[in-house]
């Protein structure tokens, strides 16, 4: 396994849209092991996305199980994830391994329903809420070339700005 270099702002590659994973093979498994090692090697990140290390495929890792009293599904490797339902909205403070030394407030859905494949290509569906749902939305943004700084809001003016989600 290896600790990979994390792309950091203003690297233009962070704006790139990632491609779906089509081959569920040893190369994919090896990469995900490296991605996880990279996540654990840095600041206490609850997630990481493949494009953050320069691999532009739709793969994220999320694990909020270390936080007490936080509803969660444990350690998740989400391949080709797709959010199929959003509800609610809340402001929360986010930071990012790709944006050192800055945190900002972002509006996210408080509940989501998610479809994703695992490392063998098997599809699962998850119903998530709160912090875990926020973490997944943050990581999935990377797959579409979005960083949390693209979504930062001002508490003073955006507190009641409702984001319209498609269901």
């Amino acid at each position, binding site marked *: 396994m290896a600790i990979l270099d994390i792309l950091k702002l203003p690297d233009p590659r962070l704006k790139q849209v990632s491609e779906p994973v089509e081959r569920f093979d040893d190369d994919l498994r090896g990469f995900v092991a490296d991605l996880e090692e990279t996540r654990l090697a840095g600041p206490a*990140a609850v997630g990481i996305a493949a494009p953050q290390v320069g691999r532009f495929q739709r793969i994220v890792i*999320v694990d909020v199980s270390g936080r007490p009293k936080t509803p969660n599904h444990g350690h998740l490797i989400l391949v080709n994830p797709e959010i199929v339902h959003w509800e609610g909205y809340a402001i929360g403070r986010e930071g990012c391994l790709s944006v050192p030394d800055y945190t900002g407030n972002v509006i996210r859905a408080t509940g989501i329903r998610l479809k994703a494949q695992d490392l063998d290509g098997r599809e699962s569906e998850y119903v998530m809420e709160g912090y875990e749902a926020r973490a997944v939305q943050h990581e999935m943004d990377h797959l579409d070339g979005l960083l949390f700084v693209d979504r930062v809001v001002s508490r003073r003016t955006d507190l009641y700005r409702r984001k319209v989600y498609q269901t």
Partner: protein
Amino acid sequence: MPDWNMLTLVGADRPGIVSRVTRALYTCGCNLGEASMIRLGGNFTIMLMVSGERPCEELLAALHPVAEELGLRVHLDPVPGGLHRHLVPNLQVRVFGADRAGIVADVTEILAEQGFNILELESDVAGDAQHPVYIMNIQGYCEHTIEALETALSALSNRGVSVDVAPVDVLIG
């Protein structure tokens, strides 16, 4: 030798203040650091870190024509401290109540006794002229529990002030 100046500008709000001020600073060879710019009661207020390589007199001279034209009051202080010194808040305190003198002092005295370090404070007066409501949002860092803070602040609720303490969860991903 301080490496920064803290520049403060205040004046009646109008379009173009930020562009004119920052252009003057850029033309003068300055770099800008962290900034807070916000409209308060019809005034536009700027607090801006400006790299300290230029003498204060030179900065003030560069800003003088802009300040004169836009009616801005200017203040400049050399300050120590650079960038990349962020502290991350772990608690948020939201306060609202009928506006009366002393709310901020009452709340922040209790927070100070709890060792609460205020990192950001925003407040507004809402309601209407007959029934003004004071709304305040504080973010900061404190090692005490939410329960301890709520207990300490509970005396205020008897005086008609609503105080809510919530965690600030910073998600790193």
